């Protein structure tokens, strides 16, 4: 018999109470139970990075965390990046620099870059490439993604002055 657990989570500032089966992955919980389908599932074994979310302030692969483990946690998904209908500077830079093609890797790339830029507001290209090495993109060849992150860093530096 599968056991079930009551959990409380806050996702993008909204509190949810839910009941989950032990084996339910956090990614499937976000998508199927909360309807937050911005979190994409690519490989389901922690290689592609598409399902990256921010769990208690740190990026994690949501395919490598069970939903029951997130009880009490504060989560941000890609849906939480924009504010009041305004895209986050990272999202705008991805759009402007064509860092998005098919869009499948984009949510993971954005959240990976979001955490990275908080710690490294003026990164070198090499540092960006190392930071996104855990996120696979099969369209862009990464060049436009790297440029988008550089552009976002520049815009965020101006905005914070």
């Amino acid at each position, binding site marked *: 018999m599968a*056991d079930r657990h009551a959990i409380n989570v806050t996702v993008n500032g909204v509190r949810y109470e839910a009941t989950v089966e*032990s*084996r339910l*992955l956090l990614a499937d919980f976000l998508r199927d139970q909360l309807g937050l389908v911005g979190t994409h599932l690519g490989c389901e*074994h*922690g290689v592609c990075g598409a399902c990256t979310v921010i769990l208690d302030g740190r990026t994690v*692969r949501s395919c*490598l965390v069970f939903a029951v*483990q997130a009880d009490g946690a504060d989560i941000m998904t890609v849906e939480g990046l924009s504010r009041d209908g305004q895209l986050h500077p990272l999202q705008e830079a991805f759009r402007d620099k064509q860092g998005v093609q098919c869009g499948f890797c984009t949510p993971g790339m954005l959240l990976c870059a979001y955490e990275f830029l908080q710690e490294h507001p003026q990164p070198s290209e090499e540092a960006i490439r190392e930071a996104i090495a*855990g996120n696979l993109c099969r369209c862009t060849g990464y060049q436009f993604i790297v440029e988008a992150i550089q552009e976002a860093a520049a815009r965020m530096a101006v905005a914070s002055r």
Partner: protein
Amino acid sequence: MKPAAFTYVAASTLDQAVSLLAQHAPEGKPLAGGQSLIPMMNFRLAQPRYLIDLNRVSELMYVREVDAMVAIGAMTRQSEAQRSEVVSRLVPILSEALRWTGHAAIRHRGTVGGSLAHADPAAELPAVALALGAELVAQGPAGRRVIPAEEFFLGPLSTALGPDELLVEVRFPALPSGAGWAFLELSRRHGDFAIVGVAAVLALSGDGRVDQVSLALCGVGPTPVRAHRAEAAVLGVEPSEGVFREAGEIAAQEIDPDSDLHASAAYRRRVAAVLVRRALVEAHRRAREGR
């Protein structure tokens, strides 16, 4: 794919975790960071009936300086250990190896103890534990015991831990003062498992000869391996590019790598020879600067 059904129990203390594991072993498995176990469960390569979650056992999350050792609680996140001032001051080779361990999102979740207990032969931390002669502390129903790193790794994903034992702490001896070190790795992408990784520690005597040396490799056999013959070729010798090149060639001959999807055995030997040479050169440079 999705994991098979299992029963989930979250332990809140170490004692509770140990007794839950004793109660449910061998069908029950401890869940540390889950960055290796959950992928295996998603593939259904692993189908534990019970998972004992250690992620709320905060008493296993610490980095402490104790008697010229760095004691790290098994549930310490890899990213916490990587940022630790104690680690970077006393065992900088561990900070460097952690930079190569998975990606940031993996290290935020993955634990120091989990990587060692999982014992992937291509993983970085087991090689560092072996190079430094770390001690691994296990706790089971019968109490605690200390297992030296050279006796801990038995085969691929296989360790000296009993089914009812938890790895609770790892003690890395601080590098001898003035010792040089290097951790080098070749992988397909930064953060992937090593095709070959090399951990090297080297100290010089007053007359500039090699006084102490330790070399451990990952990715080249069923467990991380010490390159004892290559160490012997360097020990007591006056360092030179030629000596280090020769040590690399010896190391390449004493390892027994397999061919797989990522690289052939012959390629791994070639890479091992080059990385051992480079690691010795870098460790020697640091040892000279540190004198």
